[in-house]
């Protein structure tokens, strides 16, 4: 568990200090190059906890931008019971949900009241039972005029009848990165290793709320056209249009944003700290925006590129 990046009198990294979780002792590792990949928020936390004479606001934070522009994907979902899918023929449907059957963004923003967009993922199917399967087994009877509950052979029949008869759609959208959404070191709280933790300040704006509203209108249109009985209620403004709480979609990015201007960004185009050229960040932190899709592949591509750059710089003895 890394506590902080250590630096020398010139402000360059000399290694890290970390806690061995087994013996709970603190150790130091010397290094020529330090690469942070702790995930967007944790890398920001390490930087903010790495305070020194040369980096009084935390390593890499002369701009004051570390931790800011935090953003996660927007997310909302709806599901429906499709009576036409009752008593289905059974076949292998593994993967219809988990692999994200994917509807890319399809509309022209000029005609909409929010910027950017979202994609949709469909789920449902004849999935493998795990804990929770069979809970409220025939609750859907209420939609077909039959009695909910019971036991015995009728119950067993109902479980099979309804198996695979619900489908759902989830929307995942782009949130606009804003300086006002940020994480920072909590002055009052440490973790079990004595390392100060982060606290979060995050709100959705109309950009995201109106996107969430549009998602729900679209879910309803599709599921209804499928002959579905919509389940649950349609969330309104008072429920943030059903948007999952920030962080729930776990696509958090943006806390160590990339840029050419060292006054307004943390890393350069090679994901190298403006303030310490032998420190790199290869997680979602350097994203200045995110597409609506999962960030991992882009993280991998940028990491690859940064690795090539580090090798090149070491060969040239520039770092």
């Amino acid at each position, binding site marked *: 568990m890394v506590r902080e990046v250590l630096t020398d009198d010139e402000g360059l990294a000399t290694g890290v200090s970390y806690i061995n979780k087994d013996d709970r002792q603190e150790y130091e590792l010397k290094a020529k190059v330090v690469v942070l990949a702790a995930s967007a928020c944790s890398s920001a936390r390490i930087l903010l906890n790495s305070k020194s004479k040369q980096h009084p606001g935390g390593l890499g934070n002369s701009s004051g931008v570390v931790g800011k522009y935090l953003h996660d994907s927007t997310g909302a*979902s709806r599901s429906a019971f499709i009576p036409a899918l009752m008593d289905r023929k059974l076949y*292998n449907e593994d993967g219809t949900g988990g692999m994200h059957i994917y509807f890319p963004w399809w509309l022209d923003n000029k005609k909409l009241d929010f910027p950017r967009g979202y994609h949709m993922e469909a789920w449902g199917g004849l999935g493998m039972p795990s804990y929770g399967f069979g809970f409220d087994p025939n609750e859907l009877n209420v939609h077909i005029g039959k009695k909910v509950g019971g036991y015995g052979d009728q119950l067993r029949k109902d479980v099979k009848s309804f198996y*695979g008869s619900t489908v759902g759609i989830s929307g995942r959208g782009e949130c606009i990165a804003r300086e006002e959404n940020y994480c920072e070191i909590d002055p009052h709280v440490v973790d079990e290793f004595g390392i100060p933790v982060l606290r979060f300040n995050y709100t959705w704006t109309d950009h995201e709320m109106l996107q969430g509203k549009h998602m729900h209108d679209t879910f309803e249109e599709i599921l209804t056209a499928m002959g579905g009985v919509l389940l*649950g209620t349609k969330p309104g403004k008072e429920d943030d249009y059903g948007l999952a709480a920030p962080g729930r979609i776990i696509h958090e990015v943006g806390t160590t944003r990339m840029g050419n201007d060292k006054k307004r960004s943390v890393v350069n185009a090679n994901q190298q700290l403006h303030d310490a050229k032998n420190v790199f960040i290869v997680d979602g932190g350097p994203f200045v925006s995110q597409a609506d899709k999962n960030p991992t592949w882009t993280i991998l591509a940028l990491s690859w590129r940064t690795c090539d750059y580090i090798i090149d710089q070491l060969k040239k003895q520039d770092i």
Partner: protein
Amino acid sequence: MKRRETIKSMLVGGIAGPLFIAGCQPEHADVKIKGKESTPGPYGRTDKEKEHDAKVYASKFLTEHELATIAVLCDLILPATATAGSATDAGVPEFMDFIVKDITSHQLPIRGGLMWLDHRSGRLFDTNFISCNMQQQKQILDEIAYPDDVAPELAQGAEFFSRMRNLVLTGYYTTRMGIDDLGYQGNVANVWDGVPEDVLAKHGMSYEKEWLAKCVDQSKRDVLAQWDEEGRLVE
């Protein structure tokens, strides 16, 4: 996350409905029930998880009487059919014994509910639930098994029975026997033939010929590709 919280947050998010819960990944998704055995399966566990498992398996919660009552309930909820075994055949009482130790929030409602059941049996038939005959047992269940149709003074019994039914079904359908009864098929190595043609036809759909031509011909799916010495695909 506890299931109740999941449901709550799902409702706020606009989702509800019971069956697709199987699609999310709850904390204890990889608990395998292996008939009468009571040791964890060979799946990967961290040291911390192994420690937790060992502690859970070494502990005791349900009493013999409670387990005996659960066994009777199990087979009233899922009796054997011509093609499938009963809940006790599938080892559901052992699952119940485990799950209340693993998810401790079930302990009080299950224990209290079983006592409620014996109390009700005592009032109606002057004996505890397992000593009633099956007709009497079913008479009690009929009072509490239909949540939309329960006398207000028996509401707590209905709440207990719903929990019991949920756990019995989840225990049953996560065994080999239950999975076979349900008809879950799942992936088969090296076979993916899409949605069966007759199912598509039933919904007025079919795969486009142009796309099918790009997919693997299922009769040749086991044929390995051949390359020449320079790595060019021959076939």
